[in-house]
């Protein structure tokens, strides 16, 4: 399974960014190969449609889950249409901690 997360810093130890569309980096983790990949969000500063553009970017990587602190309404609509599971962790949790919670 491929999991994406919004990151504040370009490392797996980064806390989850609070806003999906305006997050500077996305981390992509493959639970099978245990591979971690970093994507730069080129749309993070755009004032309009940042969420939908970011969702398009991530859908190209065939993600199944997305972790973020908050999602905008347009991003939710788009992610729902594509059957992506959205996950909102408690504040301060890092991507690494969340990956370690997966027990299967």
């Amino acid at each position, binding site marked *: 399974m491929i999991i994406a997360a919004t990151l504040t810093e370009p490392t797996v130890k980064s806390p989850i960014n609070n806003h999906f569309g305006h997050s500077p980096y996305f981390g992509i983790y493959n639970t099978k190969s245990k591979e971690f990949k970093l994507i730069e969000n080129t749309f993070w500063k755009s004032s309009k449609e940042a969420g939908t553009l970011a969702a398009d970017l991530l859908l190209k990587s065939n993600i199944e*889950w997305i972790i973020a602190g*908050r*999602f905008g*309404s347009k991003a*939710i*609509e788009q992610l*729902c249409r594509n*059957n992506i*599971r*959205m*996950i*909102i*962790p*408690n504040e301060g*949790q890092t991507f690494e901690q*969340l990956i370690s*919670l*997966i*027990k*299967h």
Partner: protein
Amino acid sequence: MARNTKERLIGKAPSYKGMKPYGQQKRKDTEVLLFLEEYEAIRLFDYMSLSQTEAAQNMQVSRPTFTRIYQKARNKIAQSLIEGISIRFEGGHFTFSIEWNYCPDCQISYSVLPSNVRNCPFCNSISVTKSNPI
């Protein structure tokens, strides 16, 4: 005792709180409360041009119930237009079309996919509660 009103599914809530009439000499204190399910009925039927049957399926109510919700919405909007009363979007019996659950062990909220089981995706625990993180 009368049966409780079933919750109607809402795809999108309005991004603003209401509407005010323009150019009135005296402001009226009254306002019309347009329920969010009524707003959704207008959005599906008039704005997205769905049929009443399709719109009813979207909101998970029967076609006659949809017609009733829609008619109430029309009446309220008409009252606001004719009498110059402001509209406020508030209240009603509704739930958002995405269901969110919370797992206390992992401390995460997650969206429940239509085809999916409700267990926590991280630890597979079944002791999860409904939540509304957004």
